[in-house]
């Protein structure tokens, strides 16, 4: 341990950052977890590199620094100054991208991955995606620093950034954006940032005063909270990108047709320097199959997201490079805990014991997914605790539990929406449940109908989602922190709480998690959450699957988040 190097960093670190450094030095965090946590807490990449080098100075310091460098060097380069030489000289060319048709390109209100992807071309976040695809990196904010208990965060903004119309980007734009998001009830910021919580200290600094301490705040104003794109002061709520094209990003919107596609051209004044490509062209699709067909027919070069089955041919294609990100994408099989056949915990556990999770992962994802243990703490989160035993298929136990609960010939309708592999999941679950004598009748509906009729009907309004069906499958997109899953789907009276789960023990554990800012405290709270959820089983959660995207090898430098946002500012023709 090279204490000299360590002390250099520790000297200028704030308490929260110190806590993380200590945890890493003591071996309680893996290197990957440390990089992730430290970036969120605002430690610069140089400092992170130094800490890693310091803590492994015995043998592998060059490689340690190199490994940090490898994953963060591009963002380090991007954070250094206002302009950066691009990695390749301008190669020209236009890349054609197959994307899901956006339902809305209103940056504040959009809920779908299609919209996230399009808006992220022109607009930017305070904290953007690093090239590795899973951490945050400086975007419109160069540096962020928490106070000692994580209640106040200070963001130093990048300077000399201009909007597409030439006007300067300032802290007022950030403040206006945040106010708009808070007023709209943005799910990531709800309960964390209140009205007036964002204040411009000067033209280049914004101070966020949070409702309570929160160690994950930068995630909530990053690419992982897709609506927090920074929009101009004058953007009134309800404005959409196509009506008023604007942005600070590398691409200016040239044409937009809600049905067919959009084109973007290079922003010559972008702070990151001129992009190698001249422009990007998005083509909209309604399903992934045709996207793959289009690629095979050489009509698109990149696909924003595809699933394992439609994209089967892409895995063996030597000319296609796949971007696979392990992600927290999952399905929740909710069961009403307040009334109906699943009100008894034993019945819910019985159903969970019929899941043959490895078989589901193999059949639906060809192995490209990770096991879920009926709770929402994905193993990729730094505070995941693996000590809770993984539930496996146990038909005998399921039958035992059912008879203990005095239930025989359980028959229920399994509702789901027509989305990706979900109908197939329902078919497989039906077959697996039948082995324990449970009869499930699968009912598939179109997605819009499903959300409004089975998952969270508008009536009765209070408590939210109390009109939900007894049993159903709903999809959840990737989130960099489980806050949204815990808050909306599982907390009592949560807005997406289709199982009407109401557990004081869980609510307390969640509160503990939310207010913990140290890594150890977060982990302890998560252990409680995992245990409670695994025992109560308000939702069955069999897997977290990988996010798959990719592009033809004719282009390089494409990277993507797990939320439909694909970045082309560093892309070039090969």
């Amino acid at each position, binding site marked *: 341990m090279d204490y000299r190097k360590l002390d250099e960093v520790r000297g200028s670190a704030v308490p929260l950052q110190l806590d993380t450094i200590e945890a890493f030095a003591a071996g309680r965090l893996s290197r990957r977890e440390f990089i992730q946590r430290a970036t969120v807490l605002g430690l610069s990449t140089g400092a992170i590199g130094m800490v890693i080098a310091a803590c492994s100075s015995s043998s592998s310091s060059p490689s340690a620094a190199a490994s940090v460098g490898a994953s963060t060097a591009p963002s380090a380069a991007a954070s250094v100054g206002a302009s950066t030489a691009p990695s390749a000289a301008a190669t020209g060319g236009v890349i054609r991208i197959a994307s899901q048709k956006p339902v809305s390109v209103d940056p504040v209100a959009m809920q779908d991955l299609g919209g996230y992807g399009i808006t992220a071309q022109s607009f930017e976040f305070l904290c953007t995606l690093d090239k590795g695809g899973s951490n945050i990196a400086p975007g419109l904010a160069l540096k962020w620093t928490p106070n000692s208990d994580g209640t106040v965060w200070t963001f130093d903004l990048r300077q000399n950034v201009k909007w597409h119309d030439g006007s300067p980007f300032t802290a007022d734009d950030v403040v206006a954006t945040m106010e708009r998001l808070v007023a709209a009830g943005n799910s990531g910021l709800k309960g964390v940032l209140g009205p007036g919580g964002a204040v411009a200290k000067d033209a280049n600094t914004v101070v966020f005063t949070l409702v309570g301490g929160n160690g994950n705040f930068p995630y909530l104003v990053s690419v992982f909270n897709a609506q927090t794109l920074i929009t101009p002061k004058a953007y009134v709520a309800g404005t959409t990108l196509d009506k008023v094209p604007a942005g600070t990003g590398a691409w200016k919107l040239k044409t937009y047709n809600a049905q067919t596609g959009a084109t973007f051209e290079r922003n010559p004044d972008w702070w990151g320097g001129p992009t190698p490509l001249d422009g990007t062209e998005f083509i909209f699709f309604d399903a992934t199959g045709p996207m*793959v*067909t289009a690629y095979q027919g050489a009509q698109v070069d990149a696909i924003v997201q595809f699933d394992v089955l439609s994209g089967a041919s892409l895995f063996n294609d030597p000319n296609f490079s796949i971007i696979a990100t392990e992600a927290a994408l999952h399905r929740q099989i909710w069961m009403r805990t307040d009334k109906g056949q699943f009100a008894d915990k034993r019945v819910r556990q019985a159903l969970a014991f019929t899941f043959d999770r490895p078989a589901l992962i193999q059949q639906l994802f060809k192995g490209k997914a990770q096991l879920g243990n009926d709770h929402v703490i994905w193993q990729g989160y730094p505070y995941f605790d693996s000590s809770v035993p993984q539930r496996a298929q146990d038909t005998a136990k399921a039958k035992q539990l059912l008879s203990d609960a005095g239930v025989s010939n359980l028959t229920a309708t399994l509702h789901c929406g027509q989305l990706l592999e979900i109908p197939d999941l329902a*078919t497989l679950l039906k077959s697996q449940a039948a082995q324990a004598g449970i009869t499930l009748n699968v*009912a*598939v509906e179109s997605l819009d109908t499903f959300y409004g009729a089975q998952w969270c009907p508008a009536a009765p309004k209070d408590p939210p989602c109390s009109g939900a069906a007894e049993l159903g499958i709903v999809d959840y997109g990737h989130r960099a922190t489980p806050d949204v899953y815990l808050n909306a789907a599982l907390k009592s009276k949560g807005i997406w709480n289709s199982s009407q789960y109401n557990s004081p023990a869980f609510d307390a554990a969640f509160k503990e998690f939310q207010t913990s800012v140290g890594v150890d405290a977060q982990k302890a709270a998560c252990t409680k959450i995992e245990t409670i959820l695994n025992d109560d089983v308000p939702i069955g959660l069999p897997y977290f699957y990988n996010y798959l995207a990719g592009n033809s090898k004719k282009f390089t430098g494409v990277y993507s988040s797990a939320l439909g946002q694909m970045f082309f500012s560093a892309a070039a023709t090969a």
Partner: protein
Amino acid sequence: MVDVIAEPTPIGPVVSPASSERSQARRETVRLLIRRPAFIIGNIVVIGWIITAVLGQRITPYDPFNQFFIGHEPPSPAHLMGTDRLGRDVLSRVMVGSRDVLIIAPLAAMLGVIAGTLLGLVMGYYRGTVDDVLSRIVEAFLALPVVLIALLTLVVLGSSPLVVVCVVGILFTPIVARTVRSAVLSERQLDYVTAAKLRGESGPFILSREIFPNVLGPTVVEMTVRFGYAIFTVATLSFLGVGLQPPSPDWGLTVSEEYNNMIAGVWWPTLFPALAIASTVIAVNLIADSLQSVLSE
């Protein structure tokens, strides 16, 4: 149609063209039909599918619903038609898939034919205001694109087999009605009808006993044609996602679930159900065509 004896119609009980004559004509028709290869082939195929529909899982090589092997295995001696994306045997699913289509399509066709025939009989026989009004409504309905209305209704009401049968049946009614009506129009002018009226027979009696048997020919042809259209339409609706729902092994649904995989070179889960649909509709059309040729001679 039926030849009328050219002599003055006597007063008193007069019998319509002898029923024995009619049944003799029928037997003759059947004999002519059986001679046509198209008719035979068509029937073989349809009956084949009916057998698989009725016997279902008893004769499939594997369980079409709960037995999962390796996904997307190409056709082999173990799996003659390969396996689908979840690893289920395609041959078993194709065999069982005939059941849904062979229940729903005929029901829909029959609903359309029965309703249409009744309507056509009434319209053609009574003429006058009844016919005028009903004709306008029928013509209006004829102008509606079937798939569009079916699509809308199914999306709104949810697609249960019952709704599919009703919607498709109702949408077929006007077409059948129009055919039956024209047939009735030509029949009603014939002398035996006038004779029956003079005898004092009531309208419904004439319709059912006299006219209907003589319009049976076109009606039967129409029914077979409708049957073919019904299969076609139900398959298309399933393909669009508003017909039968998973995990039904319905052919149209299977094609819509698997056709994207053809790009990856996995042609078998799509091709075999598609061929099944095509074979059934072709068979039914061959039967309809033969019937039409024989009955119009």
